[in-house]
């Protein structure tokens, strides 16, 4: 395996890790108006992700940095091309991040209410737009011979891509609800579990619709050997398993099973892309690949050493931080925010 492929896999893993971790973060943010009936409950909900959201978001920033270092043309074409989508994502992330630190600093209900809505929309918009952007990498966008994007925001908002946006919103709501049922206790936990059970059927439905529509709107049938279709099939299977665990009251296993679903869906996307990174709808010759978009072999080698040295350490201390805050939160818990 060459380093270009290795970095393609690494970036896929960064996105998978990001959607796994930030998925339940966004889910909790979007569930806030539905499960947070009073201020105390909303604080409990926010505190379940309080120590973690920033570290989870860094997965996306690192994916961006890794794109820049390993595939500068991918980074340049995607970010300048999907300009308006990323402006909206950035604005959401700015307001969402500020909301975490600011909302509970003052007691005024209007102040808190305003930040709670920013948390909601700041979680909703990236959940919608990031999957839309990523699916368009595969579906194909107008990229010319100079690797320049020739479309607009509307180009990205096509039906098959929007399906994945909606799928992500539902999926993250589901993921967030299971997470809350694990991290809280008492009434909050049982309400979160009931919510997860209600979200499971539509999540399953939209995943199926998304996968089937993707088969017809991308070139995957022409490129994949039959065996590879097992990957998205397993994604469906683990979602089914997740629902079964949920009904049996095994929230931990349900959470893990759906985590696998998220990773498998992201893996399917990257498997369908490989070895391309951005498909050009104008000419197959103009698609960006892991070779035409890449940095020099020297840079990839240096980056590999750096990643090899740092990634295990990062994983260790992030896991440790989850272990430190493993206790369930209830309404009576002391709250730091």
């Amino acid at each position, binding site marked *: 395996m060459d380093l270009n492929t290795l970095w393609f896999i690494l970036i896929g893993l960064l996105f998978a890790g990001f959607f796994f971790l930030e998925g339940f973060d966004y889910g909790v943010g979007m569930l806030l108006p539905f499960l947070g009936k009073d201020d105390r409950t909303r604080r409990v909900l926010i505190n379940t992700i309080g120590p973690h959201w920033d570290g989870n978001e860094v997965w996306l920033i690192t994916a961006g940095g890794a794109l820049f270092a390993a595939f*500068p043309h991918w980074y340049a074409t995607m970010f300048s091309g999907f300009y308006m989508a*990323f*402006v909206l994502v950035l604005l959401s992330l700015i307001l969402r991040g500020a909301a975490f630190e600011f909302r509970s600093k003052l007691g005024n209900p209007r102040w808190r209410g305003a930040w709670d809505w920013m948390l909601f929309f700041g979680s909703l918009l990236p959940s919608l737009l990031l999957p839309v952007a990523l699916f368009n990498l595969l579906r194909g966008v107008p990229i010319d011979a100079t690797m320049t994007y020739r479309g607009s925001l509307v180009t990205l908002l096509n039906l098959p891509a929007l399906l994945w946006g909606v799928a992500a919103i539902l999926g993250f709501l589901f993921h967030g609800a299971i997470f809350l049922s694990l991290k809280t206790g008492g009434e909050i936990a049982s309400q979160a579990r009931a919510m997860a059970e209600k979200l499971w059927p539509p999540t399953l439905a939209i995943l199926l619709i998304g996968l089937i529509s993707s088969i017809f709107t991308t070139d995957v049938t022409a490129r994949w050997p039959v065996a590879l279709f097992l990957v998205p099939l397993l994604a469906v299977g683990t979602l089914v398993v997740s629902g079964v665990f949920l009904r049996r009251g095994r929230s931990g296993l349900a959470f893990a099973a759906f985590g696998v679903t998220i990773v498998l869906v992201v893996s399917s996307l990257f498997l369908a892309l490989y070895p391309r990174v951005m498909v050009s709808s104008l000419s197959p010759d103009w698609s960006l690949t892991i070779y035409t978009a890449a*940095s020099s072999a020297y840079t990839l080698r240096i980056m590999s050493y750096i990643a090899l040295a*740092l990634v295990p350490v990062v994983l260790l201390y992030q896991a440790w931080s989850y272990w*430190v805050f493993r206790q369930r939160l209830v309404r009576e818990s002391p709250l730091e925010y």
Partner: protein
Amino acid sequence: MDTVTLARLQFGITTVYHFFFVPLTLGLPILVAIIETIYARTGNEVYRRMAKFWGKLLIINFAVGVVTGIVLEFQFGMNWSEYSRFMGDIFGVPLATEALSSFFLESTFLGVWIFGWNRLSRGLHAATMWLVALGSNLSGLWILIANSFMQQPVGYTIVDGRAQLIDFGALITNPNIISQYPHVLASGVVTASFFMMGISAYHLLKRSEDREAFWRSFRVGAVAAVIGCVLVIAVGHAQTQHIAQSQPMKLAALEALVNSEDPASFSLFSIVQQSEESISELVSIRIPAVLSFLTYNRFSGEVRGIKDIQSEYVARFGPDNYVPPVMLSYFTFRIMVGAGFLLALLALVALILVWREKVERVPFFLRVLMPAIGLPYVANTAGWLLTEMGRQPWIVYGLQKTKDAISPAVTPGMLMFSLLAFTIIYGGLMVADIYLLLHFAKRGTVEEEEQVEHTALAY
């Protein structure tokens, strides 16, 4: 306005705004970590209250620093795609390393610090703040390594019109970083120590309840301020001498030296008229030979002027205007240096008063220290404007011009939208941030946390 102007305006606004929050994020974690370490070792409750108080202000500041930093990570690709293509091989390496080595570190451990007061031992909790300090300062190092390449390209070769990295060791030991990094690090310490002294001064003047906490904080601040100021000035001097070698045009501009001189005179006050084609001095009051001394440590030696360097660059790089905005460079340099010396003077007086235990007997000085919180911010901003504007018309010195770096896929309308959106939201955040900082700075070390919760439970 064209895309280049809009994109530059956006980069300027988002970067300057981001750097409004960064220096405190570099310096304050170090001071909080020191304070909390004292608490961990002695168990003296006053240090716990101090750590919590300064930590809370740090968190409020940190939040805005983090969210405005995300914009910068993606802005290179969004607005400057041709720069990203040309430089990705090199610039992406420190950027990705920054994310891996520092963003994870500071975000994870700040989260643990905020929520971990009752979950971790005293020593371990103090250690998490040290890790936050390490993270934010490592982040500064990597991003300055990236910036240094733009000031002084090293360890590269040009292949097919793209810069390619050939020597990672050279990249991270760039001569430019050797003076730039300590300068920025020390300015962070100065910013944090004046922040600490100014707020402590308020409470000492007001005779707040927890006098001991603020008197001790003042002492920490005074010591850190003196160390920081000495470093900033000493390193800053070395940095300017380095710029004389690596970016002679920037030096000529910041000294408003139009014609080459040997020995070169130092400008006390200059007005230079600059247009696309010509440059001329309108007013110039100069002291003979002092610039040569500042540059070479002796009263002789040629310092080259703007006109000579312009003709040399035309011969080397082809016809263009290679002169950065002279008056802007000249005045930002003087504002930065002036503020720096004023801060050093204040720091010295503060330390002497601390030494003689007379701080509270000079209320006038305490009153001066409160607005002085803003002085490091003036110096930091002026310094960055000089660094980046003085590099123009280059985005990467001698390799790529700013006008060639812009994204062809982005229209002026899109840029205008994002510029307005970022500016409005940043403006709102700034107001909220300053309001919160004032609110908590004035409240002192009293922990009202529980009270807030009881009222919260009431509705």
